[in-house]
Structure formats: C-alpha cells, structure tokens
C-alpha cells in the first residue's frame, strides 16, 4: 500500500475498560435488591406493578446492550430493531399459531440471535462511528419494514396486533399483572446470572480482549470475527426475549412502538447505568421509564429536552454513570464504618 494517500490513526479504545470484578454487585447487596424486587409488588397498585414489569423488561434490553458494548466494545443504536423482531415473533406465534406465551420467548430469542448474528457479519468490518451509523439506519428503517404490505397478513400492518394477557397458571391466587411481574422477574434473574457467567467465562474474556485491543486479542489467538458476531447475536437474542415479554405486558404490537426513540432510550439507559456494569442496567431502565413521565407532568412535550439535559449532566458530572455513584457510596459507607 502506498503510504502517501493514507491517514494513519492511532485509535483509542471505544469504551473505557471495566475490570471483570467491577461488573456486578456483592452477594449481600444482590440479595437485598432481590428481596426488594420480590416483596415490592405485594404492597402497591396494579398500575405500579405494570410499571415495575416494564422496568425489568427494559432492564433486560439495556443489559443486552451492555453485554455488547461493555463486553465487546461494539455499539448499537439499533437495539429497537431486535426488540421489535422479538415482540412481533411472540405476538404472531401467540395470535396466529396459538402457542403458549412462555414458549414463544425462547423462539423469539433464537430468531433474534440469528438476526443479530447475520447483521453482525457486515458489522464486523465496521468500528466506532461506522457501526453506530449502520445500526442507527437499521433502527430508522425497521418501522417501515414492519408496515410492508407483503407481511401485512401476519403483522397486521399499520394497525398492529393485539395480544391476550396470560392468566396465572395452576389456579394461583394472583392477578394477571402480578403473575406477569413474577414471571418476568424469574426470566430476568435467570438471564442476569447467565450474563454474569458468560462475561466471566472464556468467551467473556475474549470479548473484553477484543474491546481493549483488537489486534492484541487476535495475536493471542482470539477469533475476532467469531466473537464479535457472537456478541452481536447474544445481545440481539436477549433483546428479543425482552421484546417478547414487552409485547405480552403491553398486550399490543405496532410498528410505531419500535422507532428510533426506543433505540435511543436503551442507549441512554446503558450510559446512565454505567457502561459495563451489569446492575446499572436496572438503574438505567428506571431512568428511561420514569424521567420522561415526570417531565411530561411538568410540561407536555418537554420530555425530550429534560432527557437530553440530564444526559449531558451525566456525561459531564458522572461519566461512568450509576457505577461511579455506587463506588462513591461504597467508599462513604466504608469510612463511616471505620469511625
């Protein structure tokens, strides 16, 4: 190659490295959070239970993005596309095929895994801004694809599909909302534990090696292409499960529910929660669910501005998101204990 016409760039890593240990909460804290999540719905109204369910679902989607970005250092602004595919898979299987809602979720996960893996192939050659751009375009195009006349028989076109909400099985004495909450909670915990183990495994170390220095990773024998697409696939698969759960919880799927706004929200959730810190996913999810609501209370149409301003504050004041806050809190508690 002739050197004259080329730019030579020494590129900084896209994401700041997070040590493996700093990815999770300690055992004690985890149990307290878990206890709170199990007990909370017993004391609140149905609408709040629904919101808590959505909190877990978006939390899953943010977690998926976190595995991709915090784990392997690739971005995606197109998670809403995978979420939509998962939601539509569940909805179509339930309404057209008559399948049980619980069975549709693994199928949604597998289909999205395949979709993500295939999309990851061209994405392999892209890094940084180019990847952000390709996934951004995917998110913008997705609602249009869902509206296509060709699929209309299955997807319901612009009108979308109505999904029936499942009852609690085995005659358990709880409402639909509460059952769905516990159902979601079990799946979320399962996926959370699996994700933690994934990132601590051999594959997880390969992801992080790629994140920190791709060339060094390949020199050490990591199959960069395979692990990059794998990270995309796993992330898309988990997002698909979240999408399926979302369709069941909201009882409705329509193209306009899965616009670029959703993709941006998930991305913000990850940044606010702290990139690479898995428990931050729930914090980020709370941010993207409750902040727009509060902003709408102040003034209609203000939510975007409040969102943006808060995001800038996070970037400038606590660049590592909730993880940084957690670390500071931990140090404060440690000091208090000493005194």
């Amino acid at each position, binding site marked *: *190659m002739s050197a004259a*016409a*080329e*730019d*030579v*760039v*020494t*590129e*900084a*890593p*896209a*994401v*700041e490295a997070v040590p493996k240990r700093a990815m999770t909460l300690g055992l004690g804290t985890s149990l307290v959070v878990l206890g709170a999540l199990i007990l909370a719905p017993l004391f609140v109204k149905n609408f709040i239970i629904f919101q808590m369910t959505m909190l877990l679902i978006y939390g899953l989607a943010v977690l998926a993005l976190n595995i991709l*970005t915090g784990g392997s250092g690739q*971005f995606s*602004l197109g998670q809403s596309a995978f979420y939509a595919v998962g939601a539509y898979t569940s909805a179509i299987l339930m309404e057209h095929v008559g399948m049980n809602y619980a069975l549709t979720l693994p199928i949604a996960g597998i289909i999205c895994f395949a979709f993500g893996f295939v999309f990851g192939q*061209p994405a392999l*050659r*892209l890094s*940084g*801004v*180019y990847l*952000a*751009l*390709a996934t*951004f*375009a*995917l998110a*913008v*195009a997705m609602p*249009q*694809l869902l*509206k*296509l*006349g*060709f699929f209309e028989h299955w997807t319901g076109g612009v009108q979308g599909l109505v999904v029936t909400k499942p009852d609690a099985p085995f005659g358990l004495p709880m409402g639909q909302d509460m059952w769905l909450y516990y159902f979601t909670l079990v799946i979320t915990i399962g996926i959370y534990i699996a994700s933690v183990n994934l990132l601590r495994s051999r594959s997880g170390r390969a992801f992080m090696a790629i994140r920190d220095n791709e*060339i060094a990773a390949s020199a050490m024998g990591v199959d960069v292409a395979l692990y990059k697409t794998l990270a995309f696939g796993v992330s898309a698969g988990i997002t698909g499960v979240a999408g399926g759960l979302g369709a069941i919880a909201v009882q409705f799927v329509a193209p306009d529910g899965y616009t*670029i706004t959703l993709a*941006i929200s998930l*991305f*913000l959730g990850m*940044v606010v929660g702290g*990139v690479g810190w898995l428990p931050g996913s729930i914090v980020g999810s709370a941010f993207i669910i409750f902040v727009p609501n509060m902003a709408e209370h102040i*003034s209609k*149409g*203000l*939510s*975007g*501005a*409040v*969102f*943006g*301003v808060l*995001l*800038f504050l996070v*970037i*400038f004041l606590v*660049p590592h998101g909730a993880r940084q806050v957690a670390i500071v809190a931990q140090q404060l508690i440690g000091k208090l204990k000493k005194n």
Partner: protein
Amino acid sequence: MELFTNQVLAGIATGAIYACMALAVVMIFQAIDHLNFAQGEMAMFSTFISWQLMQWGIPYWWAFLATLIISFVGGIVIERLLFKPLAKAPILTNVAGFIALFAIVNSCAGLIWDFTIKQYPTPFGSSPFLGSQLISTHQAGMIGVTLGLLIALYFFFQFTRIGLAMRAAASLPESARLVGINTSWMIALGWGMASAIGAIAGILIAPVVFLEPNMMGGVLIYGFAAAVLGGLTSPLGAVLGGFLVGVFENLAGTYIPGVGNELKLPIALALIITVLVVKPAGLLGRPIVKRV
C-alpha cells in the same frame, strides 16, 4: 423515456439537499472524527428560525441571511459549550452527547412552535422551469443554490488563508498547531459552517416536506448515506454521493416493483451497509489505516 428523464431530474433536485446535509456531516466529521447525529435537528431548528423571522414580516432573502448568521453563531456556541469538553472522551460519550443534543433540539422546537405541519414559502415559485414540464422552478432553484454553495466552499478552502488553516487543522492537528494555527478555533469554525450549511438544506427542503419538528429524520439518513457513499473524508465526494443517492432513490422507487414510497428508507439502509462493506472509504475518500 420522459418518465425516466423526469425522475432523474427530480432525483438531482432532492439529491442537492442530500448533498448539503452530507456536506454538513462531512464538515464536522473532518474536524472531530465524529458523526453528528443531531445535524438534521439543527437544520430543522434553523429552518424554524427563518420561518419565525418571516412571520415577523422580514423579507425572504433577509430572513435567509439572518438565519445563516444565527446558525453559524449557534453552531460555534454548541461546540464551545458542549463538545469541546468532550474532545478527549471515548467515542461512546460523544455519541451520547450527540443524541442528547438531538433530543433537546427536537423537543425545544416542538415546545416553541408545536408539532403541527406548516407551509413554507419558496422564493423560486413552483411553476414549470423555463416552460419545460420536466422540472419546477423550485427544484431548479435547489440545484442552483447547492452548486453556488459548492463553488463558494471550493474557493474558500482552496484560496483563503483561513480555509487552508482549517484543512491543515483537520488533516494534521499537531503539525498545524506547530505552525501557529489555533486548531481549537478551527474546529469551532467547522461547526459553525456545518450548522449554516445544514440551515441552507433545511430551508430548501422545507417547501417540499413541509415544516415540522420531525421533518429532517429521513433527510438525515439520506445525508448519511450520501456522505458514506462519497467518502466521509471528502467534501466533494459527499456532494457527488448526495446527487447519486437522490437519483438512485427516485429510480428505485419508480422502477423496482414493490419499493414505492414505503421502502425508501430501507433502501438508504441497504446502501449504507453495502458501501461500508464493499468500499468503507467511499468513492472519493482516503482509506484509513490503523497503527498498532
């Protein structure tokens, strides 16, 4: 045949707008190596400013000029306040910043001018151009303004001290600093110019897509597609890409069955991905080599 010529000419007209957007995207990419996801929203906001000025009774061309100046200053202010502090931050933080800007600008436009669709005047009129049925005077005006802008930019970058300094700051910042160029202000200047170019694109496309806060969503994606096709490192490539994307979009919509209007955005997506995979540097861009 007449349908074909018609579509090509209409494609060149919308392509002119994509070229402007792509040019604005490339200006910022050259300066700071990031894609400005808020470019479309900034252009939309500028267009609203010009509309407001006209509502207050200022004549079209004066409003146009005032908007360019306001946008230019606005772009510089945004860079100084928000993005200069992020210059050393990881890419992820920058992307988050652009998205935050996107949300703020979009929401503020909705708050100030609400989300109803507004008519936007054209200074060229909409009668057929020079008596031909192929192209309207507004479309001809769009092409004319874009070409004028291009020539002006070419002279600016080729023959003025400050244009040369900007190019130096973009290609070799360290060396530029050594010869006494204030690279930091050159970046701010790039933001200002990108913002003004975006404003021109917004003002020209507003009579076609109508004025509302979400008007630039699709245009921005085409602008990105054009910039990627032409090469993110080449302003000339961006313009060429803009015209090609415009023509391609129109022809695909007319001749490929089943594409029509509903598949136009997915076409832009397919175009972006294909170009990035086949020739990541674009048609006229320089290949980027990583040093380990």
